[in-house]
């Protein structure tokens, strides 16, 4: 990682050699967000986030840096001194105290020449056509401090990466990705507001059991443990398409629990995997149709046997998604997606169903020349019946000030992916000031 950091720093230094014309811009964004739990009426989130973004242009290159300072008054989302064990040393946040953190959010150099575009540094990369459901969007891990309620731009964790895009012709492009950064999903720790409890996500370990040891085996070698990906994508005859491949570690750690007379030994490991897939979209009239598929060769699934012993089973998993967007009504956007996944070589003890279906529905309407936007999103697991309803009203009071109000409602079985947070329904208020 140190060598990689030196390479990035050198590239940035070279681009900034004195004598080149330089142009800079600075933008600032301040967010104040508050949430109240509808069950307890207590404040569940009270945070302020400040993000300055700097852009320096030097010849053919551009240097972009985004910093983040965050202070969480209630300390419900990440209580205590979190270890950041899922982050590599260069991606860890600087913890000022248990409530405040400073972070170099992104730092990358863009170089663009002829038919090639290279972005090197700490960045976000997004693949896929799906909204809110991740099939191919696995390049960057995510912070689940608010489960899936936060915008992906906010929850996605930027990684030190090399991202090379090259045009083959006016219809076809290629992309190559190397991610030496061994940072993975940030799973909320015990006691957090959105701590996972669904057996689909974590083994069922009773709270009264004594955890003797916790061992995390996290990859660390930047070459042998790096992620490598490639994509061919293009546009032809009204169709947009993409073929994707990535050799990577699954971002969710596999938790193994070994019981002894005195208590439990918990081991967390990360699993290597190949993900192969593709996506497409086309537009016809007022409609856009989107599709995406991904096959993971080495996914793990938790099971619980008749004696109550928990474990995990590895097998391939195929995921498919089809989505339709409709814009035939003025100032209105309607979108729906059907997602299905199938576990290979299924065994009955696996907690997750062999075939799992989810449905999403989004309705967005704009008013006052797009200064007032109202939207509602439904996400439902068709297998277990649990789900999430997320609604938001956003008002652009001025070019600098945006006000938001929202409702997040979970429902269903508390063992389900969404139902596990049935007690976390909340009303949210937000203010964004940018300049």
């Amino acid at each position, binding site marked *: 990682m140190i060598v990689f950091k030196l390479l990035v720093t050198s590239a940035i230094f070279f681009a900034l050699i004195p004598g080149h014309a330089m*142009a800079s811009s600075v*933008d*600032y*964004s301040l967010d104040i967000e508050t949430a109240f739990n509808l069950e307890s009426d207590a404040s569940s989130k009270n945070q302020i986030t400040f993000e300055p973004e700097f*852009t320096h*242009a030097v010849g053919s290159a*551009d240097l972009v840096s985004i910093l983040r300072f965050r202070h969480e008054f209630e300390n419900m989302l990440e209580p205590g001194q979190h270890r950041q064990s899922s982050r590599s040393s260069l991606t860890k946040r600087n913890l000022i105290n248990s409530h405040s953190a400073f972070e170099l959010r992104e730092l990358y150099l*863009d170089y*663009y020449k*002829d*038919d090639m*575009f290279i972005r090197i540094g700490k960045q*976000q*990369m*997004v693949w*896929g056509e799906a909204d809110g459901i991740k099939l191919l969007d696995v390049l960057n891990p995510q912070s689940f401090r608010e489960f899936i309620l936060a*915008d*992906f*731009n906010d929850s*996605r964790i930027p990684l030190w990466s090399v991202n090379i*895009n090259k*045009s083959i012709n*006016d219809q076809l*492009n290629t992309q190559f990705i190397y991610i030496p950064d061994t940072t993975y999903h940030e799973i909320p720790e015990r006691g957090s507001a959105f701590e996972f409890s669904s057996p689909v996500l974590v083994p069922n370990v009773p709270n009264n059991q004594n955890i003797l040891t916790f061992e995390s085996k996290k990859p660390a070698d930047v070459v042998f443990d790096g992620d490598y990906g490639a994509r061919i*994508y293009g*546009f032809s005859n*009204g169709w*947009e398409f993409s073929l994707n491949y990535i050799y990577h570690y699954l971002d969710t750690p596999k938790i193994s629990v070994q019981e002894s007379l005195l208590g439990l030994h918990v081991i967390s490991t990360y699993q290597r995997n190949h993900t192969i897939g593709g996506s497409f*979209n*086309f*537009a*016809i*009239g*007022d*409609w*856009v149709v*989107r599709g995406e598929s991904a096959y993971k060769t080495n996914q793990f699934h938790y099971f619980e046997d008749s004696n109550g012993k928990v474990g995990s089973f590895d097998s391939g998993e195929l995921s498919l998604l089809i989505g339709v*967007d*409709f*814009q*035939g009504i*003025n*100032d209105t956007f309607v979108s729906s997606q059907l997602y299905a996944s199938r576990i290979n070589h299924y065994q009955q003890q696996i907690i997750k169903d062999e075939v799992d279906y989810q449905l999403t529905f989004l309705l967005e309407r*704009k008013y*006052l*020349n*797009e*200064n007032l936007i109202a939207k509602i999103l439904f996400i439902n697991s068709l297998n277990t019946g649990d789900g999430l309803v997320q609604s938001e009203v956003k008002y*652009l009071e*001025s*070019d*600098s000030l*945006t006000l938001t109000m929202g409702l997040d409602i979970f429902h269903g079985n508390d063992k389900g992916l969404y139902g596990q947070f049935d007690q976390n329904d909340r009303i949210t208020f937000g203010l*964004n000031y*940018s*300049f």
Partner: protein
Amino acid sequence: MKNHFMLITFVATFSTFVSSQELPDGAEIIDKVNQIEEGAYVTRNLHMKLVDRRGKVRERHTISMRKYYGLDKKTIIFYITPTNVKDTSFLTIDYADSGIDDDQWLYLPAMRKTRRISSGDRGDYFLGTDFTYEDIKKEGKIAAEDYTFETVNATEVDGYDVVVVKALPKNEEVAEELGHSMAELYIDAEMFVIRKSKYWDVNGNDLKTITTREISLVNDILTRHRIEVENHKTGHQTTFTFSNVDYETKVDDSIFSEISMKRGWKQ
């Protein structure tokens, strides 16, 4: 006295009869409008000023490029300021064949990916402005296949002689798609540029008025520099001001791409 009145009336009527006989055919005028040279490519800054009925102002600075590929054209608009829309971009491929839907994409920085959007409803308003997608696409020209045209009379707009052409959508379906049931086009009698256009909605009510205030030659190409729209239904106004218009510097094909949209506009 009565004889004088009758004489004046006769002369006025005769003059009017002669004038209407001299007015060119509506379709012929539209043809001249659509033949105005636009240049094979153009780069320009665009300042958008949006004012609501209460006088609240929003401003956007953008830079746009447009390039013709035969009769088809590609246009990309990058938002530069303010911060809350910075790096948003819009790409459209407009096909000359009216039977082929245009292809459009929107890049929202918060999503970190481009989104394919449908182009079916040409009468939808463009990104919060009072211009429709059709207005943006046509850039002062008219889709002749959508209308029947009739020359109405001659008058003046901002001191320029204009011919007024009434444009009626050919059928209800086209009217619904465009969002208006009738348009009056005030076309400069010498330059054949549309100086003003008035629109009525599908129910026959006042809809909006578009006025081009500044027109001049840039690189020998007639260029509109300032266009004002007043939406009579909402009381909202939009002003587009074009500057740094450059028809000479070649626009690279690579600017019209997903990569370009994700990168954003960098000087």
